[in-house]
């Protein structure tokens, strides 16, 4: 393979606008700017956490990286191949290596297919195996996700949420991918089951040398599983850093507010805890505020924030922030 030790995934200035149309001629009157210029890299074997509120574009970003949407502009390099430039068939072949685990384990499994069919289907589609080979591989995959092999003949409704998510994981693993997008894989599960699935994902990563993009809104779980964390707001990345940096020394006011809103299972924590409560809701991505998109809810915004769109700057090694209020030099660490 011509690929040598660079990042596994390199996203360059990716833009995904969904047109808003009106009238019989479907004249375009605007656009939902779901992803609006995102650049990032994901190293081999790394887990990049992607957090943000609903509607901030995190799922769209994930899907656009996989070319499930045709991006408006920008590039996605996978092992140095630009996925956005590939013809459908070569892209389909590449997709074997890029898989996805979905949020809702109830909606993402076909209720009329048995577990064997669900997990075996990707192999059939790519003609990678047939008959007995598939059965053998399905058993192997069920083993891998710690489900009993005798379940292969059952239907999704016979399983609990956590077990269904394991089936979804097995399906994603069927084609030996190197990169998996986990789109809120644990949000729909109960607390005691969440830990089981997260542990499974971590074990698989180690065993199979997988690279993850882990999308979630649960910041504490993201910190647990990620190596680096990207914080997204209204289609742009506002902060990107090592997992500990983001939590110990958050620089963007949005990240600070997000962190201070996390419920912590310790009543002592609330004794002298001053929550930063953001006012209002996330603005519409069809008409984002000028300049900094966060300025309408930002506690420290000034007039200048409406003028310039802040760029993602490297404040300290590996710590990127998009805020003009953050001083350019080394910032003193403060307790937050």
């Amino acid at each position: 393979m011509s690929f040598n030790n660079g990042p596994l995934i390199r996203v360059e200035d990716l833009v995904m606008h969904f047109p808003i149309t009106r009238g019989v001629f479907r004249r375009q009157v605007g656009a939902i700017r779901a992803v609006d210029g995102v650049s990032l890299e994901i190293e081999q074997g790394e887990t990049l956490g992607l957090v943000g509120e609903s509607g901030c574009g995190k799922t769209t970003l994930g899907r656009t990286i996989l070319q499930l949407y045709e991006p408006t502009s920008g590039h996605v390099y996978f092992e140095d191949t630009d996925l956005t430039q590939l013809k459908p068939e070569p892209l389909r072949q590449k997709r074997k290596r890029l898989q996805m685990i979905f949020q809702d384990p109830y909606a993402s499994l076909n209720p009329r297919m048995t577990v064997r069919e669900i997990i075996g289907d990707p192999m059939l589609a790519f003609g990678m195996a047939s008959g007995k080979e598939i059965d053998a591989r399905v058993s192997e995959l069920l083993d891998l996700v710690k489900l009993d092999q005798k379940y292969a003949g059952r239907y999704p409704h016979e399983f609990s949420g956590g077990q269904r998510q394991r089936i979804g994981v097995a399906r994603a693993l069927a084609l030996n991918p190197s990169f998996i997008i986990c789109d809120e894989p644990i949000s729909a599960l109960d607390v005691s089951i969440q830990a089981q699935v997260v542990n499974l994902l971590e074990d698989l990563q180690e065993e199979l040398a997988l690279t993850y993009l882990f999308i979630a809104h649960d910041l504490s779980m993201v910190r647990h599983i990620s190596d680096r964390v990207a914080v997204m707001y209204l289609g742009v990345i506002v902060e990107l850093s090592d997992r500990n940096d983001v939590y110990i020394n958050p620089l963007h006011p949005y990240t600070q507010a997000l962190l201070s809103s996390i419920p912590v299972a310790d009543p002592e924590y609330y004794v002298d805890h001053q929550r930063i409560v953001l006012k209002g809701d996330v603005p519409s991505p069809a008409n984002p505020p000028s300049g900094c998109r966060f300025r309408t809810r930002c506690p420290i915004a000034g007039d200048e924030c409406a003028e310039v769109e802040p760029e993602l700057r490297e404040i300290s090694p590996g710590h990127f922030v998009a805020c003009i209020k953050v001083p350019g030099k080394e910032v003193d660490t403060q307790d937050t």
Partner: protein
Amino acid sequence: MTNRLLDVKGLETHFNTPEGIVHAVNGVSFTLDEGETLGIVGESGCGKSVTMLSCLRLVPMPPGKIVAGQANYKDRDLLAISEDEIRKVRGAHIGMIFQDPMTSLNPVMTIGKQLTEPLILHLGLTEKQARNRSIELLGIVGIPRASDRLKDYPHQYSGGMRQRVMIAMALACMPDILIADEPTTALDVTIQAQIVELVIQLREELGMSIVWITHDLGVVASIANRVAVMYAGFIIEEAPVKKLYAGPSHPYTVGLLNSLPQIQVQEKKRLYSINGMPPTLYKIPHACPFAPRCPWVIERCWSENPLLFPIGDSHKVACWVDIKTGRER
């Protein structure tokens, strides 16, 4: 001396399903004092919502059936009074907010209409008085330009705003008790923080008692005075909030707390996970319902279901084992 507002004793609720009788709530007893916030924590299907719905007789009957128990509100048993009487209690004395503000609001009625209705019905206000009061209520819950927004429909509000409207409706008649059934589960963390702050502020201003139902041990830590943990239709541990988090004494509570990632911890380490799944509730358990998942399980757990008993000052637990020593209590 604080006044006891709600005293629930031995509540049992069943559901008749084609697969058999589901024992959703199996003899739950708890109390709520004036000005107190009780958190009820548990995973889906543990009976936490059904418990509170049963108290207000809001469980759909059939298939539901309240088999036994009392729910004394002040001096009346809510499970024994007539349909007319309980109707006057709901909304006027005990308000309720639900998890999903979109499905609990009527999509084809304006917010104004939905807000004024209980005021006219319960308090006998005139249309005009009710309108003014509605504007005032929306102001209290922090909706800007309230008078303009009365004629809007629910879809024109965001998720957080809808939950604010739900709270305004629940507060409309100044109830003594507010039952909040996972009110922030469908919301983003920043909006969740807004709603929690709002409820804390309203609690202080209006002095109401709150029952906050949730699966989130974090939210409960920030708002409750006392917490009851439920599993398989039983309360398995109950304690003042600080005691519960500092010294959880039921293996399930311990497991739940340990399976949360610690936001303060820096090194990556493996999460603790509770093996297996919650049981289905088709038969009355004669063993401890948590026994199959419990790391501390002993012989007695398989033959007798432990009842909630005190282990310290206002700390109760339903477990045969003292997990500090690993021996039978």
